[in-house]
């Protein structure tokens, strides 16, 4: 990295926010993606939108590549700079600028942590539903860039259902304002939606305005055991068919159940195929009715156990199994490869079966849990990065799993993004014309290709 360039960055953000020491570069060379690592040339931490704009203008003129990074919780290598470029780290920009109770919107800086926004809006009786697993540290900018989902996706949708306005710094430093606080806006192309899930390749978000909704009055949590996988999957389909949309409809498979029980001793039986965690929320009367409907459907499908939480504490207890699923799996072996293959919900049973058979074929341990309600599964391979042979088998297995996902009409990634980890699968999913259109869009936004290069395609 050229000294004059670093000096110019220092002039923008100050010396303490321009990091070039070996230790810092090493620490910004990874995100949460296993096996991927690459040191940037410099790390810069802007304090406001204006500074992002000046950094981008500088990089544009110098032809230096820039990778935006929130808290580094990305699971597809999207926030790693693979060509010793600039890591543009947004964590300092953490102010909630406004909670507008008349228009039901919140405007935040890009580095605001998702759960901080949850807390602040819920204190006002409002609700921002997207709740990715990393919400306690993930940033809003990162959530928008990856279009993050979460447990509440089935009923409430994902990040792009809430983004109303953006202030985005383009590759040349210009600030693009899209959308705003209006619910209806058909003036020109819907650039908001285009920018959501652009994975840092089209622009750097500076400010984000999201839609808020009233906080549901009450909720009810249920835990159900199923001796047979097919019955659990049918239950999921039949709940939806009965016009009940739970806020949460989560699933654990047999491998995950065993790991959870070994770790947390929550009293799960080891002889069942599936556990469902179901949560309904809304008006008390509606919640009662939905919960009763769900109970009947579960019993009709031969659940071996059905429990409804009587209190908030008990609800927390019931949710423990799902909450600790990833921890429980991650503790088994040093390396955890967590994927997010997503299928139409009618295909959950065949998909889980296929994952289990593939694991067996490649002699791997893969636990599957996830958001059964929206078909977003997390097959999680427990392995050891030092065992090259096993790692190779894991990649081969996931290759087959993704092929099957596509064949079932699903997608290779429901919430983690393509980044570099899924790049090779994308053409299979979107085809040549899909890639061509995406490249065209990229060219229109970033003709010199300096923004998060090498990601997506």
């Amino acid at each position: 990295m050229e000294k004059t360039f670093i000096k110019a960055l220092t002039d923008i953000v100050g010396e303490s926010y321009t990091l070039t020491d070996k230790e810092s570069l090493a620490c910004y060379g990874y995100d949460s993606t296993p096996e991927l690592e690459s040191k940037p040339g410099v790390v810069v931490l802007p304090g406001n939108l204006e500074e992002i704009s000046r950094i981008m203008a500088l990089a544009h003129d110098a032809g230096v590549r820039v990778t935006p990074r929130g808290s580094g919780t990305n699971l597809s290598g999207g926030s790693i700079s693979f060509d010793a470029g600039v890591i543009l780290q947004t964590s300092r920009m953490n102010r909630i600028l406004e909670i507008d109770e008349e228009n039901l919107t919140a405007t935040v800086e890009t580095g605001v942590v998702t759960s901080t926004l949850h807390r602040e809006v819920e204190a006002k009786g409002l609700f921002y539903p997207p709740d990715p697993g990393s919400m306690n540290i993930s940033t809003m900018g990162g959530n928008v860039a990856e279009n993050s989902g979460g447990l509440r996706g089935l009923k409430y949708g994902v990040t792009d259902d809430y983004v109303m306005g953006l202030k985005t710094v383009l590759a040349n430093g210009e600030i693009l304002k899209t959308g705003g606080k209006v619910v209806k806006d058909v003036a020109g192309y819907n650039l908001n939606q285009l920018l959501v899930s652009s994975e840092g390749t089209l622009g750097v978000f500076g400010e984000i305005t999201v839609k808020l909704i009233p906080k549901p009055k009450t909720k009810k949590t249920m835990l159900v055991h199923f001796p047979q996988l097919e019955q659990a999957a049918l239950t999921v389909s039949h709940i939806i068919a009965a016009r009940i949309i739970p806020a949460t409809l989560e699933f654990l498979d047999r491998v995950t159940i065993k790991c959870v029980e070994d770790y947390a001793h929550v009293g799960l039986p080891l002889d069942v195929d599936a556990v469902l965690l179901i949560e309904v929320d809304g008006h008390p009367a509606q919640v009662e009715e939905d919960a009763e409907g769900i109970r009947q459907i579960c019993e009709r499908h031969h659940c071996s156990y059905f429990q409804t939480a009587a209190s908030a504490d008990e609800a927390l207890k019931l949710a423990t199994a799902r909450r600790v699923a990833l921890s429980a799996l991650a503790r088994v072996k040093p390396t955890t490869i967590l994927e997010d293959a997503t299928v139409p919900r009618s295909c959950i049973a065949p998909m889980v079966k296929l994952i289990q058979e593939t694991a067996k074929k490649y002699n791997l341990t893969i636990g599957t849990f996830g958001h059964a309600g929206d078909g977003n599964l997390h097959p999680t391979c427990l392995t050891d990065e030092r065992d090259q042979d096993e790692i190779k088998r894991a990649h081969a297995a996931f290759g087959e799993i993704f092929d099957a996902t596509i064949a079932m009409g699903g997608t290779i990634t429901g919430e983690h993004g393509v980044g570099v980890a899924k790049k090779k699968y994308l053409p299979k999913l979107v085809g040549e014309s899909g890639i061509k259109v995406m490249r065209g869009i990229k060219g229109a936004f970033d003709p010199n290709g300096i923004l998060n290069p090498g990601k997506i395609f």
Partner: protein
Amino acid sequence: MDYVKLINCMRCGMCLPHCPTYKETFLETASPRGRVALVRKFQEGELVDTDQFLEYVSLCLDCQACASACPCGVNAGELVAEFRCEKKAGQGLSIIENAILRQLVPHPDRLEAATAPLRLYQLSGLQKLVRSLGLLKMFPAALGRMEGLLPKLPGAPLRKTIDEVTPAQGTEKGTVGFFLGCVMSLIFSEASIATVELLSSLGYKVVTPKDQKCCGAPNMLGHDFEGVKQAARFNTDLFEGDAYDFIVTDCGGCGAELKKYGHHLDGEAKATAFSSKVRDISEILANEAGALKEKLKPLNLKVTYHDPCHIAHCQGIRSQPRALINLVPGIDFRELPEADACCGSAGTYNIEKPEMSDRVLARKLANVEKTGADYLVTSNPGCLLQLKKAMAEQLPQVKVIHLTELLQMSMNG
């Protein structure tokens, strides 16, 4: 160091929002995930221990909030401490660290002797004189800080004056061995007197062996593992046998260390048995909630609670102290935002890294102020030292007391 422990970190970042130094800096190098990466890269030979490197790892408070937050069981705080311990073993300690952590604190007799002049110094009014003349400015900064941290000392160390056996009141339920922490004995004797009184009033015979020695935690901080083992052996022998139903302490730091004796002595049966009997005072009292409640009289106070790291993160005790505070009729309990975040005391951290310690402390004070409480309850001498001084200077309306002092106050009405 066990390499597997380092690669177990899956870099999910769940530790970041819980790390006091990350919350202050937003820098990956000041986060648990970053520190594990640094130590790992050192082990792999990619990084060397430059001054900058050591500066980054030594910014860790070792509060272990990261361990509580880690989904896959990595204890970044402990790994960093272990790394520093291995480094220090070769290099030796700073003069201050050596004096405090190895030569002084682990030896109750020396510590008591050393603090005797201090007691005299405070009693004689010299302290006021020294402070008012600003003589401390002439001391090295670290010594000046230490002096400022010391509250008014009791007339004599409790270890010297406490009865070896305090009988149970009413029907005797059992016998507990009281492990009297050094700092509790020297500085916060009133809290430990309250502890004994509470136990006795609930029907426990309390035995406080006068020969007991330091728990070994300062040796650990001083990277002196041999000293830790010696302490573990000595205290295990002292409290041996079936005479005690429990071994109780009202010092979070001691409790955390005592519970690890089994581990320190490689799973030796006697040490494991000892550790399994160790209880923090709040654990014992919470089990006696019914009986205790009958003895408590109303206190119309606004109270909040600070979780000491050694209680919440090292021992996993969170609900018991809160339940006990809520037992007191009339108390308006207000949960402290970020209650389990370190107060910045962290062993000798507040002396060694004053700037970061002050930032962490300022956050704690701001949170305490938000609650509007007039009493801040906690249960670890390090936190008491740090918070009493800070409150006296910056939020004088808030009194800082040990949990047992609050309960005693309520019991006495």
